[in-house]
C-alpha cells in the first residue's frame, strides 16, 4: 500500500462516514420496500377481488333498454295515442367544452329552430350527471338530424338518437284527459331511480299518462355494454333482460261523444262569448265518463314535440287556464243545482214530505236581513215538485233552516261533495261543504243562520267540481248508488287482450228510502216540464235535470254580480217519449237512467241559462235529433240574472 493510500484510509475514519448511518439508511430502504410490498399485497391479494369487480364495472355497465310505452284507445278501440319513431337531439354536457358552449348552442338553436336560452335551460336543469345525455329536441326533421350527426366535430357533445315519441292522434280533443309525458326532473329522478328511471327519461306528467304511468311504461330491459371512461358505448356484450312493453289502456271515453260534447260546448261558448266551460257525459249505471271537455284547452302534441319555454309560459300565463282540467281541478259555487242536497235531506230526515207545502214569497227575513227569492213575487204555497221545479229560493231557505248546517253537510257528503270523487285522473280537488266544524276550523266562528240559507241554495261557502256535481246526479238517476267515476276501463296487453278490467267501483249507497230519490227525480223532470228550461221539454226524448246560476266575484256598477250557469241532466233508459207516458214522469220514476250530461258555463251572464242550451245541443247530437231546438237568443250576453 502506498503512502497516499494509507493517508486515504486513515482519513476515511475522520470523514465522519459512519457505518451506523449506512446501516440506518439500509434499514430505511428495507422499511420503505416493506411498506410498499405490504400495501401492494393488501390491494392486490388481500382485497379478495374487490378491485377486480370494480375494474370490470368500469369496463362494462348495465344499461337500460327502453321499453315501448303502451298506447291508448277509446272505449270502442279507436286509437287516441300511438308511438312514432323520431330523431331526438341530445347533449352530453361532459363532452361539451364550456368555452365552446355558446357557439355550439347557437349553432344547434339555428339548426333546430329553437331559442338558445331554451337549450341552455335544458342543459343546466339536467337531473343526471354531466355524463348523462340531456334531451334538447324531439321529433327532429330527418334531414337536420342527419346533418347534426355528420357534424360531430363542429358540435362536440351533441348526439342524435332515434327514440319513440308519443303521437296524440286526436290532437287537442282529449288533451286534458290523456295528458302528456315530460322529461323527468331531479326530484322525480331521485325518487324513481330505483325503479329504473333514467336521467333523460320521459314520464307521464298529467292526465291518464301520469295516473297510469306504471301501466304504460312497461319494464325497461337491461343490456351489458362495454364503455370507455367517457361513457361512450363501445359494444353490446349481452342482453340481460329483454324490455317488456308497457300495457295499453282502453278509456271509458267514447271519442264520438267527446267530439259532440266539444262541439256543443264550443257552440255555446262562441255564441255567448264565454271564456271557459265544461261538459261531462257519464253513464249513471257504471260511473264511466264518456266525455269530458274543458275549454279552452291545448294540444298534447305540443309537449310531445318538445314545447318551447315561451309557448309553455304562454299556456301557464293564460288567464283562462288551458292547462287546467276544469272538470276536476277547480271548484265553483254550484248554485241551485245544489238544491238536490237540501231537498233529499229534508225528505229523508222527515222535515217535510213530498206533499208538504211551504209558503214561498219574495224574500225571507232573518233578523234585519232580507233573503230574496230570485222571483221577487214568490210562487205561493209550494211542495217539492213546485219548489224544485221553479227552483224557489225561499222554499229551500226554509228546508235548509229546518235541517241546519250539519244535516245539510251530511247530505252533501252522501252525494259525494266535499271529497274528491276518486276519478283516475291526477289533480282533483275536493270542493268545500260548509259545516259548523268546518267553519270553526277554517274561519274560527260558527255558521250564522243566514249562511245556512245560502248553503241550502248552493251559494256562500259551497263549492263543487263539475265532476262531483254530475256524479251526485248520477246517484240520483240510478237510485242512490254513488260510483267512483272512471276514465279508464281496461288494461290491454300488446296483443289487445284484456289483462285487467276495472269494474265499476261503488263509493257508497245513499242512505235514503228509494221514494225520496224518486220524488227528487220527478221534481227534476218537473224542472223541464214547467218550461223553467224553456223548450227543453219539446225534445222528443225525456230529460230531467236542474239548472243553476251561481254568483261569484265582485259587483258591477249596477250592483250585479257575474254568474256561472250550470245544467245537469239525466236521461232515462229508452228515453223516447211515449203516448203511455206523455210527461215522462213514469220514465224518470225508474232508476235505469242511461246517460247523464253536465254543462258548466263560466262567467256566462247570458239572458237564458247557457248551460241548458249546451246540454240540449249535446243531447240533439247524441240522440241524432234532427230538429234544432236551440234558443240562440238566450245566449245573448249582458248581465242578466233572471232565474235559477
Amino acid at each position, binding site marked *: 500500500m502506498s503512502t497516499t493510500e494509507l493517508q486515504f484510509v486513515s482519513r476515511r475514519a475522520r470523514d*465522519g462516514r459512519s457505518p451506523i448511518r449506512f446501516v440506518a439508511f439500509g434499514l430505511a430502504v428495507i422499511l420503505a420496500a416493506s411498506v*410498499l410490498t405490504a400495501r401492494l399485497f393488501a390491494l*392486490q391479494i388481500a382485497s379478495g377481488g374487490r378491485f*377486480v369487480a370494480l375494474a370490470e364495472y368500469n369496463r362494462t355497465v348495465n344499461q337500460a333498454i327502453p321499453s315501448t310505452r303502451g298506447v291508448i284507445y277509446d272505449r270502442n278501440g279507436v286509437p287516441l295515442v300511438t308511438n312514432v319513431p323520431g330523431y331526438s337531439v341530445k347533449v352530453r354536457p361532459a363532452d361539451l367544452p364550456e368555452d365552446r358552449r355558446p357557439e355550439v348552442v347557437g349553432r344547434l338553436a339555428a339548426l333546430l329552430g329553437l331559442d338558445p336560452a331554451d337549450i341552455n335551460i335544458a342543459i343546466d336543469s339536467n337531473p343526471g350527471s354531466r355524463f348523462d345525455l340531456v334531451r334538447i329536441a324531439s321529433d327532429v326533421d330527418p334531414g337536420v338530424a342527419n346533418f347534426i350527426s355528420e357534424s360531430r366535430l363542429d358540435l362536440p357533445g351533441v348526439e342524435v338518437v332515434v327514440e319513440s315519441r308519443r303521437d296524440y292522434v286526436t290532437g287537442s280533443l282529449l288533451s286534458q284527459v290523456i295528458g302528456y309525458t315530460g322529461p323527468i326532473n331531479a326530484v322525480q329522478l331521485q325518487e324513481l331511480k330505483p325503479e329504473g328511471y333514467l336521467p333523460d327519461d320521459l314520464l307521464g306528467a298529467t292526465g291518464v299518462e301520469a295516473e297510469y304511468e306504471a301501466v304504460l311504461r312497461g319494464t325497461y330491459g337491461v343490456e351489458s355494454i*362495454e364503455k370507455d371512461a367517457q361513457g361512450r358505448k363501445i359494444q353490446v356484450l349481452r342482453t340481460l333482460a329483454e324490455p317488456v312493453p308497457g300495457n295499453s289502456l282502453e278509456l271509458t271515453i267514447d271519442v264520438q261523444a267527446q267530439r259532440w260534447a266539444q262541439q256543443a260546448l264550443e257552440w255555446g261558448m262562441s255564441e255567448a262569448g264565454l271564456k271557459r266551460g265544461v261538459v261531462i257525459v257519464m253513464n249513471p249505471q257504471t260511473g264511466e265518463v264518456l266525455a269530458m271537455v274543458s275549454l279552452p284547452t291545448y294540444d298534447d302534441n305540443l309537449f310531445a314535440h318538445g314545447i318551447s319555454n315561451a309557448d309553455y309560459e304562454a299556456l301557464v300565463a293564460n288567464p283562462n287556464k288551458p292547462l287546467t282540467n276544469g272538470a276536476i281541478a277547480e271548484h265553483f259555487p254550484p248554485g241551485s243545482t245544489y238544491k238536490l242536497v237540501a231537498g233529499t235531506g229534508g225528505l229523508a230526515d222527515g222535515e217535510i214530505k213530498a206533499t208538504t207545502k211551504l209558503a214561498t214569497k219574495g224574500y225571507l227575513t232573518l233578523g234585519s236581513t232580507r233573503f230574496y227569492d230570485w222571483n221577487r213575487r214568490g210562487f205561493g204555497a209550494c211542495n217539492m215538485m213546485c219548489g224544485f221545479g221553479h227552483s224557489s229560493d225561499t222554499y229551500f231557505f226554509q228546508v235548509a233552516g229546518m235541517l241546519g248546517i250539519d244535516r245539510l253537510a251530511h247530505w252533501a257528503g252522501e252525494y259525494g261533495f266535499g271529497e274528491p270523487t276518486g276519478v283516475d285522473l291526477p289533480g282533483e280537488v275536493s270542493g268545500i261543504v260548509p259545516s259548523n266544524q268546518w267553519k270553526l276550523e277554517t274561519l274560527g266562528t260558527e255558521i250564522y243562520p243566514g249562511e245556512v240559507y245560502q248553503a241550502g241554495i248552493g251559494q256562500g261557502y259551497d263549492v263543487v267540481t263539475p265532476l262531483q256535481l254530475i256524479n251526485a246526479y248520477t246517484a240520483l238517476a240510478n237510485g242512490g248508488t254513488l260510483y267512483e267515476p272512471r276514465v279508464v276501463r281496461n288494461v290491454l296487453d300488446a296483443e289487445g287482450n284484456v289483462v285487467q278490467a276495472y269494474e265499476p267501483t261503488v263509493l257508497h249507497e245513499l242512505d235514503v228510502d228509494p221514494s225520496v230519490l224518486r220524488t227528487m227525480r220527478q221534481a227534476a223532470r218537473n224542472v223541464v216540464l214547467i218550461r223553467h228550461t224553456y223548450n227543453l221539454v219539446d225534445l222528443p226524448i225525456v230529460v230531467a235535470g236542474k239548472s243553476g246560476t251561481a254568483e261569484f266575484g265582485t259587483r258591477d256598477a249596477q250592483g250585479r254580480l257575474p254568474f256561472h250557469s250550470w245544467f245537469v241532466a239525466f236521461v232515462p233508459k229508452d228515453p223516447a217519449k211515449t203516448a203511455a207516458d206523455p210527461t215522462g214522469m213514469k220514465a224518470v220514476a225508474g232508476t235505469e237512467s242511461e246517460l247523464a250530461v253536465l254543462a258548466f258555463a263560466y262567467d256566462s251572464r247570458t239572458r237564458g241559462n247557457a248551460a241548458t242550451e249546451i246540454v240540449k245541443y249535446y243531447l240533439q247530437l247524441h240522440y241524432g235529433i234532427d230538429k234544432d231546438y236551440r234558443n240562440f237568443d238566450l245566449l245573448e250576453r249582458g248581465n242578466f240574472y233572471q232565474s235559477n
Partner: protein
Amino acid sequence: MGVINAREARVTDWTSRSVGAIWRAFDLQLATYAVLLTCFGLAMAYSNAVAGGDGALATGSVFLRGLLWTGIALVVFTVAAAFDYRWLKTLSWPLYALQLGLLGLTLAIGTGVGGSSRWVSILGLQFQFSELAKILMIVVLANYLGARRGRLDSIWSILGACLLAGPPWVLVMAQPDLGTSLVFAAILAGMLFMGGASLRWLSAMALTVLAMLPFIWTYVLRDYQKLRLTSFLDPLADVQDAGYQLYQAQIAVGSGGWFGKGLTNSTQNQLDFLPVQTTDFVFAILAEELGFIGALVVIALFIALIWRVLVTSWRSRDPFGTLFAAGLASMILFQLFVNVGMVTGIMPITGIPLPFITHGGASLISIAAGLGILESINIRQGRAEW
C-alpha cells in the same frame, strides 16, 4: 485541499490501471439492474402505445419515443462513466449556474398544464429540465459538503447546504412543481445525513420545517396542490375530480391480483380510465398487467439498485463520491416510495416520476447520467480493495 488530494490520486490511478482493471472496477450489477428496470419501463411504454390504439411503432408513439430516449440514455451513461467525475468538482460552480439557468429557462418559456411551466420543447420533444436539475443538485451539494468534510458537525455547514439548495428550490416551486421541490429536499436531507452532519442540528432543522408547514400550506401551495395532497386521505369523496386518478389507480393496482392481466391487457388503461397513465401513474398499469409478482420484481430491482449505489458510496475514498452516491440513493428511494405510495394510495399525489418506469426522456437521461457518474466514481477509486 480536497481538490489537490484528489488530483494526486487521479494521476496515480489513471496511469497505473489497465483496461481490465477498469472493467473489474465497473459495477456490472448496478448496470444490470438499471438495464432490467429500463426494460420494464419500455414494456410499459409498449403496452401504453398498444392501448393508445395506433400501434406500438406508429410515428411518435410512446414506445418509439421510449426506444429513442433509451438509446440516448445509453450514450449519456457511457459518456458519463468514461468522463472523469473529478472534473465535476472543478466544474461545480458553473454546473450550479447551469442548473439555475435551466430552471430559469423553464420558467420563462416552458409549457405545462393548467398555467404551469414544466416542459421545454427541444426539436419537438418535450424535456423537463427539473429532472436534470436533480442530478446537478446532487453534484453541487456533493462538492460543497465533500469540501467541508470533518466540519459537518457545524450548523454553518448545514445552513450553507440549505442556502445552496434554496435558489433552485424556489425556481422549481415557482413552476410550480411540488414533486421536484420535495425531491430536492429529500436529496439534501439524505446527503446531510449520510455525510455525517450533526444529528442534533438535523433534527432541529426537521422541526423547523415541520413548524413551517402551516405557513407553506397557506401561502405557498396552490389550491389544486392542496386538493391533490388531501384527496388520498379519502379518494372516494371526490371520485370525479381530484380523487379520480387515485381511485382509478387503486382499482387498476387492485385488479391485478397475483400475476396480473398480462401485458397490454389492462382494462383501466385500454379504456382510458387512468388519465395520466403514461406519466406518473404508469406503475398502476404495471401492477395491473404484471400483478403482485411483477410489481414485487420491480421493487426488488430498485432495492438491489439502491444497494449497489450505497456500496459505491461506502467504497468511495473520495468524499465527493460518497456523498454523490448518497444523494443518488436518497433520490431513487424517495421517488420510489412516493410514486408507488401515491399509486397505491398511501401517499399524496405530488407528481413525482418513478425512475426508469415513468415515460419521459428527462427522467431516464438524468438517471442514466447519475448512474454513469457513479460508475465513473467506481472506476476511479484506484486499485480495487474489495
